[in-house]
């Protein structure tokens, strides 16, 4: 095959009638643009979910009151028997537990010298930061002694910090939480939003203080339960099977509460990372489906290209005859028209990608949803466009290649 002459002839045909080429590409342009937008939405959702999982931690279990139904959903959040600090100690003693913290949470009305801010407060032990894999950006976290001694200190999340001290300079300031004066000793790094699709609660809108201080002075806790905690977070040792750990925590709690076999649990051991992954699988199926729908428009575009290529072969019958008369083989003609179709589609793909990219930017701006344009998406979109050219260009190209030289030359 003579590739040089085939390519240059194809390129020449493409640019000799730009408007027609553009119109022919239209279907491909739209197809590639929509494939790209759909895939970007899917990738964006996937990236958001990965971020959530890493924010939650893959080896963290949460023990909370209530019962689990078959679908794994929470049935009536706060029902079931509450936990206390002896439960936390029992869990922490399990051999596979790296560390555990009880958490007591409640509403907090925080007042700084600059502003008022309604947020929530979580009381925890010093392990809170390790279990949640949550680092302190500025200042420091509270120590075990401070936690035990019930020191009047808090570490604040980014959102709470920004709203309480719009002017910055936070560490060392005093604020009042539900009228109780406390000292701000640190600011937590940002964790972002918790729920799916970037729409969940803002995890940075919180205050974290020593458990006993929060219970005794700020939220009060459940007065019928001594040393009450609302939930227990458990960090499972690296390398230990998290599902296995989940099972063992459950068995131990049933033992502690003397729940008879056959009776339902009155607590749940939740693996949030697992739940997010399940939701992610559903989201992925959805975006695959959407990308597939977009691909259908690529096929329609391909049919359009085939149609115009057939017209083009007919129009250029004499030219084909001439090329054959001076020695072009059928294969040379085939290649020329195939290249033309592929170039047409690939160029349409590039334009479609540019438009799709604008669409992605626009959509991300409007919806605030994260969208990702990865090299894989670019390669897929371009590859799909080129394949459409190859597949739908083949029939017209073969028709050109099989023309009879003398009939083609005489055609008018």
């Amino acid at each position, binding site marked *: 095959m*003579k590739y*040089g*002459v085939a390519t240059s002839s194809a390129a*020449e045909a493409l640019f*000799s009638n730009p408007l027609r080429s553009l119109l022919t590409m239209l279907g491909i342009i739209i197809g590639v643009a929509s494939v790209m937008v759909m895939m970007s939405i899917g990738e964006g959702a996937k990236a958001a979910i990965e971020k959530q999982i890493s924010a939650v931690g893959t080896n963290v279990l949460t023990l909370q009151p209530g019962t689990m139904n078959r679908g794994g959903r929470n049935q009536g959040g706060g029902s079931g028997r509450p936990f206390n600090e002896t439960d936390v100690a029992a869990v922490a003693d399990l051999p596979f537990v790296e560390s555990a913290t009880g958490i007591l949470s409640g509403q907090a009305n925080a007042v700084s010298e600059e502003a008022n801010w309604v947020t929530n407060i979580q009381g925890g032990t010093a392990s809170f930061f390790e279990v949640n894999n949550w680092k302190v950006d500025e200042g420091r976290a509270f120590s075990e002694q401070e936690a035990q001694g019930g020191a009047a200190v808090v570490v604040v999340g980014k959102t709470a910090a920004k709203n309480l001290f719009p002017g910055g300079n936070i560490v060392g300031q005093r604020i009042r939480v539900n009228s109780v004066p406390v000292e701000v000793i640190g600011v937590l790094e940002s964790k972002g939003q918790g729920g799916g699709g970037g729409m969940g609660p803002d995890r940075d809108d919180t205050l974290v203080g020593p458990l006993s201080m929060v219970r005794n002075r700020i939220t009060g806790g459940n007065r019928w339960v001594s040393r009450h905690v609302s939930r227990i977070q458990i960090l499972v040792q690296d390398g230990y099977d998290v599902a296995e750990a989940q099972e063992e925590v459950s068995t131990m709690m049933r033992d502690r509460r003397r729940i008879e076999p056959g009776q339902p649990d009155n607590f749940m051991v939740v693996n949030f990372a697992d739940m997010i992954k399940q939701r992610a699988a559903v989201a992925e199926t959805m975006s695959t489906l959407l990308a597939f729908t977009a691909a259908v428009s690529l096929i329609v575009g391909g049919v359009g290209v085939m149609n115009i290529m057939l017209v083009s072969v007919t129009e250029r019958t*004499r*030219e084909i005859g*001439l*090329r*054959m*008369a*001076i*020695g*072009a*083989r*059928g*294969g*040379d003609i085939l290649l020329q028209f195939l290249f033309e179709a592929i170039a047409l589609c690939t160029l349409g793909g590039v334009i479609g990608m540019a438009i799709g990219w604008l669409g992605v930017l626009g959509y991300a701006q409007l919806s605030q949803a994260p969208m990702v344009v990865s090299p894989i998406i670019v390669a897929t979109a371009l590859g799909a466009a080129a394949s459409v050219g190859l597949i739908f260009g083949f029939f017209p190209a073969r028709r050109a290649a099989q023309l*009879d*030289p*003398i009939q083609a*030359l005489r055609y008018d």
Partner: protein
Amino acid sequence: MAATRPIISCRDLTRIYRMGDQEVRALDGVTLDIHEGEFVAIMGPSGSGKSSLMNLIGALDRPTSGEMWINGRALSEMNRDELADLRNETLGFVFQQFNLLPRQDAFQNVRLPLRYARKDVGDIDARARACLEMVGLGSRMDHRPMQLSGGQQQRVAIARALANRPRILLADEPTGALDSKTTVEIMQLMQDLNRQGITVVVITHEAEVASYAARQIHFLDGKVEADTAHPELKRARGG
């Protein structure tokens, strides 16, 4: 001349066109030899089968029956690709309507057969330039067909036919669209090429054009009616 091997050899060629249930016998038993280095004019009334024969010799068409050899090779034994290569390497074709690619300039048109060549042709650009200079268009290389006169376009077409240094130049009414002055120029060019050793076969209606050829073959109703190389033919027919 008879001592040399014929470069074109036709034996009992027929070419029948079928249109519905109608049959047109364009060629009806043509036998003829053309030797290397000859300059042959093919004449005859319209519809007598001249172009039909030329298309067979040019390996553009296949006969209904009969056999032909170009340069010693039987065309019936060659496949499509081999025929394409034969057209590219051994034959040069010049058409009445020039058949240049309108969007390409003279230089690009002449380069085209070189770019389809499968054997090594050396420096394509240099060769194309040399061919255009040979036909006197060295200063018009970047002109498109539209920007050239008819005679100049036919010169480009001849340069294109010569690009691969063919052994045979076939021309079907090359001066049919040209005035008499340009006709003389083109025929002189053909004569020059023939003197350089290229076998030339020209179809023409005009006696003046035919006079440039050393040998004239007359066609009538798909048959050879007269051939100056074989004066006995006419007598044999009693004409």
